């Protein structure tokens, strides 16, 4: 479970995140939705501990991301936006590197890597060096290495960016599998339809603030819009008007 409590983060004069709070429970998919530059990535980067919030706090399964960041990192698998691979290593080696770093026992590394490779259907190119991989292949390998240590909480920053229809579909299947396994999945997107198709809860962020945090039906109800896209626009305007 991921709990975020009114975090703030500024970069110089830009106040990117202004008091974002939400909860992403286990066994559910939580979508972080918002226009470009709304503060989604900054929020997620605080959660996977590469940024420290100026104010507020966040916990991963009870571990604070600032005061106990190592424990918090142990419980998450993160796919940062535009994550890069090591071009001179094969897909399998890329994944194995993360498995070892995450503390998977030496004897189990090969099995664990093999099973995640099977799960993500990347056997075909698993032993090729990742130099020259397509965006879809790269995303799958990045995801495999984020999940190789079997984390309870999965944070995905714009995972479907640059993916074709088939790759998006298989990613969606995987996210649903994680949910069925009782995992907490938090992912960000700026595409309404994608979030609507997957998420149980949606947290719409605009201008660094939470505009609305509810289930899909709840959002429809509160904005008075039946069409999701209209609801999205209406929700963003709630913040913009302030």
């Amino acid at each position, binding site marked *: 479970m991921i709990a975020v409590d009114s975090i703030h983060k500024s970069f110089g004069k830009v106040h990117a995140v202004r008091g974002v709070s939400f909860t992403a429970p286990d066994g559910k998919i939580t979508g972080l939705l918002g226009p470009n530059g709304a503060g989604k990535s900054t929020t997620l980067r605080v959660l996977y501990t590469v940024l420290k919030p100026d104010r507020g706090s966040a916990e991963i399964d009870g571990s604070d991301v600032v005061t106990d960041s190592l424990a918090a990192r142990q419980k998450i698998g993160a796919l940062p936006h535009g994550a890069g691979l090591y071009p001179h*290593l094969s897909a399998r080696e890329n994944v194995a590197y993360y498995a070892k*770093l995450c503390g998977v026992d030496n004897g189990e590394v090969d099995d664990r890597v093999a099973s995640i490779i099977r799960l993500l259907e990347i056997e075909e190119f698993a032993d090729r060096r990742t130099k020259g991989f397509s965006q879809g292949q790269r995303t799958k390998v990045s995801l495999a290495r*984020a999940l190789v240590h079997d984390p309870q909480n999965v944070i995905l920053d714009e995972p479907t960016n640059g993916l074709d229809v088939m790759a998006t579909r298989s990613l969606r299947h995987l996210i649903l599998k994680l949910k069925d396994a009782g995992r907490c999945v938090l992912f960000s997107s700026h595409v309404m339809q994608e979030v609507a198709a997957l998420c149980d809860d949606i947290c719409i962020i605009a201008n660094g603030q939470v505009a609305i945090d509810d289930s899909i039906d709840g959002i429809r109800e509160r904005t008075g819009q039946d069409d999701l896209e209209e609801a999205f626009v209406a929700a963003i305007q709630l913040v913009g008007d302030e």
Partner: protein
Amino acid sequence: MRTLLTVFFKEIIDNIRDRRTLASALIMGPIFGPVLFAFVINLSIDRALDDAESSMDLPVIGQEHAPNLIRFLQSRNIDIIDGPADVDGAAEAVRTGAHDVVLVIPENFGEQLADTIPARVELFSDEANSQGEKEARRARSALYAYNQQLAGMRLSARGVNPMLLRPINIDEIDVSTPSGRSAMLLGMMSYFFIFALLMGGMYLAIDTTAGERERGSLEPLLSLPITRGQLILGKIMATCVFMAASLMLSLLSFYVVLKFMPLEQLGMTPNFDPGVVAAAFLLLLPFVLLGAALMTLVASFTKSYKEAQTWLSVVLVAPTLPVLVVSILTLRPQLEFMFVPSLSQHLILVDMIKNEPLNGLFIAVSAGSTLAIAGALTWLCVRLYRREGLLG
């Protein structure tokens, strides 16, 4: 510890597969030095042989007016060739560089000599032409020697001891040992060792820091449950291994080159046997740590591969500057110098090659201060990686 080793082995494998890193570590550094060195040594051997043994051509106008002088010059290994047609031609030939030097013997040379009037000869040369200057100097000294000889003969003919003309006898004694003479030129070697060492790890230092950031693999790495101190230590260690390998190769290739160089012809016998190779490696090992930590630290501050490359080329030159200054000023080793990394290793290395007794205190201070600075730089790297601002 496991994180450290995992990162270490991954960086080694990753970079062994990178042709650019490998080329700079195994070829550029280790080969560039010895090749340049062999070239310079060959050049100076050629020069040295030139000066001593080879004959020079001297164009002379009016050879027939001074047959004895001509014979004297020939005895000093100077080949007399026909000069330009007249005096104006001689000046022109020297000015245009057709001849470096031209000797003109006037018609009345023999007459003046017989009348004991200072007999006039003209030597055309171009002082602005350094190569020609050398030839002119040789011709001039031959003429002086002839002058001296004639003067001596005249005095003896009049019953005066020609030794009166030599109140002082200057005897120059060169006390430099053959190994010592080598040190001048071989002092260059430590410059190449340090260069090769730094070059060997440069691309790895960039790839593991700025490269990692540029390709977007740093952020997922930092989100893993690892202590960042171990992460950066593993990277520095991998850089150390590449630097040490490059250093070793550089030492070995110099060893081979020196074996095949005719250094005795320059009066040099450098003390560079396998024992010295091993000792030099150990001596420079603390500097490997310093180089790896320094390059990693500098590259960590940069945002891209290109930026890191720019800054690291500065780092590449910096440690060679004290070596250069000391070589130019020919300073002797002193305790204060031993606190300066690269300089201390250079001075001790020169002593090793000169086969002079080594000062244990100097070696201890050199290793100690270099390791202390390396430790401080490593600590700064760890601090830097613990800061979030790293990702900017």
